[in-house]
């Protein structure tokens, strides 16, 4: 059965990159455009991996990560936090919120795919 990836991101071009990147793979992709939707989608779909942008409308990626980690239903799902600040300490914050991995924008699509395959190997 195909693994499901949830991508939470508000920029349509970045959504498109991941969509096109994963179109050649067996992963099933679902998308959410803000923190709230992201948390709801994660609870409904229980994906195998979540790509979480750090700066999102409604609630931030860090907050969404914390909520999912606090929920026993979603606590086990690996979450890759993608930040665009690249400030010292951002990786710390991501880890504290419960992120499994951390990627700074601009990321290389190749690199992203490597991380995805590592955390949720294709069936």
């Amino acid at each position: 059965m195909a693994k499901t990836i949830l991508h939470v991101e508000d920029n349509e071009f970045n959504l498109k990159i991941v969509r096109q990147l994963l179109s050649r793979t067996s992963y099933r992709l679902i998308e959410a455009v803000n923190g709230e939707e992201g948390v709801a989608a994660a609870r409904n779909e229980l994906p195998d991996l979540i790509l979480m942008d750090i700066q999102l409308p409604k609630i931030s990626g860090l907050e969404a990560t914390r909520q999912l980690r606090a929920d026993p239903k979603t606590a086990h799902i690996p979450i890759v936090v993608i930040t665009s600040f690249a400030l010292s300490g951002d990786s710390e914050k991501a880890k504290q919120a419960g992120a499994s991995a951390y990627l700074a924008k601009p990321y290389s699509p190749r690199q992203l795919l490597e991380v995805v395959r590592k955390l949720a190997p294709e069936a």
Partner: protein
Amino acid sequence: MPREEVTFPDGSLARHSAPSGWGVRIAYFFLTRTPVGKVVLWIAGIKSSVHAKLLSGFLIVTVLFIAMGALSLQAITHMSRQTALLDQAHNRLDWSRQIQHALALQMNFTAMALLLRDETTVEKILRENNRFNNTLALIAAAAVPEERDIIQRIRVAQGEALTAVADIANLLRDGRADEAMEMQLAKGYPLYEQIAGLVDQIVNFEQTSMRGMRASVAAATRRTQVLLGLFIVASMLLAILLGFVISWSFILPVREAHGFVTEVARGNFNAKINVANRDEFGVLADRMNQMSRDLEVLYEKQRAAAQQLESLNRQLRDANKAKSEFLANMSHELRTPMNAILGFVEMMLDDLYGEVPPNLKEPLKDVQLNGKHLLNLINDVLDLSKIEAGRMELSMAEYSVQDVVDAVGAALRSLALEKGLKFNAGVEPGIPLAYGDGMRITQCLMNLAGNALKFTRQGAVDLWVERQGDRLRFRVSDTGIGIAENEIENVFAEFRQADARISREFGGTGLGLNITKKIVEMHGGRIWVESRLGKGSTFFFEVPLRSRERAGA
């Protein structure tokens, strides 16, 4: 310090906070409970200089003492005059007694002449008569008016007595002794009796007058003693009173000023000094009040300025916060499209959209290269802005110097190979783990080594780290274009590259060295360069082996 308020009889207040002892308490008793306080205020209110007031006080006391001296002198003069009068009276008494003696002798000799019937004895009578007359002349010369009449009568009686003696002498010479005896008894003897009575009168008079004089001298002496005593006591009291009121008319404003200055020192610029004085102390008090008003105005101005500063400070803090938020947002807003641009290009070059036609490969690579360059620029500008805003924070942790050098070597080795440059990266053996922001130190070394590779066309780039006591020294040397002597001091400035042509040829933002310098300084280190134009450059930086983060550089 105890603070006392004293109310004067006229209702005015004296405030002071000077230490007060018994003397001051007694003084305040007199000032507040007796009219002395009013006198003090009156003297203070006299429109005259302190000098004149002091001089007047001393003059008054001096005049009193002069008057006392004059009084004493007068008493002494009076007494010596009385004594002289007494002396004269005494003389007159002496003379009167001599007259009495001479008279007795005359009578004696007359009696002898009659007994002896001897004419020669009469001469003795005449001699005594002369003595009598001479002495009487002395008394007459010194006689007081009351005595003159008696003296005149004595003279007349004496003249008659002498005539009688002459007659008796003639009768004796003629041998008529019985007649002479008769004459003596009828005329001579009564005359002598009369003279003796008159002389007794004078003696009595002198004795009485002498008693009177003695009593009057004694009375005058007593009077003088009492008067002088009173004068001395009065002068002393007046001198003490004058000293007290004059000195307190000066002490009060001084104490008032002391209280005032204490108030001002405590920061009460509303303090007012209120003194009755219209002398120098009054002028001083006016000046002090003026000073207090000026100070208050200054204080108000200063407070307003401080408030303004505080509000400015608040605005600045808000602005700084806004700047930080703006930076965070800008970072996100710039990176998001960069992510899309670089992401799409990479996917195209990875043939995700099918094989790229060969003639498009180069332009796509150019887009990628310039995109990455733009990203570097954005990173540099954001780094610098963070440093400037004090938002750059070091992530302090243990790090391995070898790891830092390895990371830089790994990142740049391929570039060196591409340019045909020798590239050596090494670390002195035995350096322990360092403490600091390893990522930022890596960024610094990467900047320096990247520059060295960029500005070197042939030769070698060497990278070396060694320990200097408790510091780490990083060294990056190249055989590149070098830096002109007059440009060396500018290489660490923002947006400065040694030459505008260089930026066209080699690219770069000109921010790398400035950022490097600031990161090194945040670690408590320093950076410097040795270089000669055309002979290559060597950049050094030193950071403590174990850094303590400094406030934003």
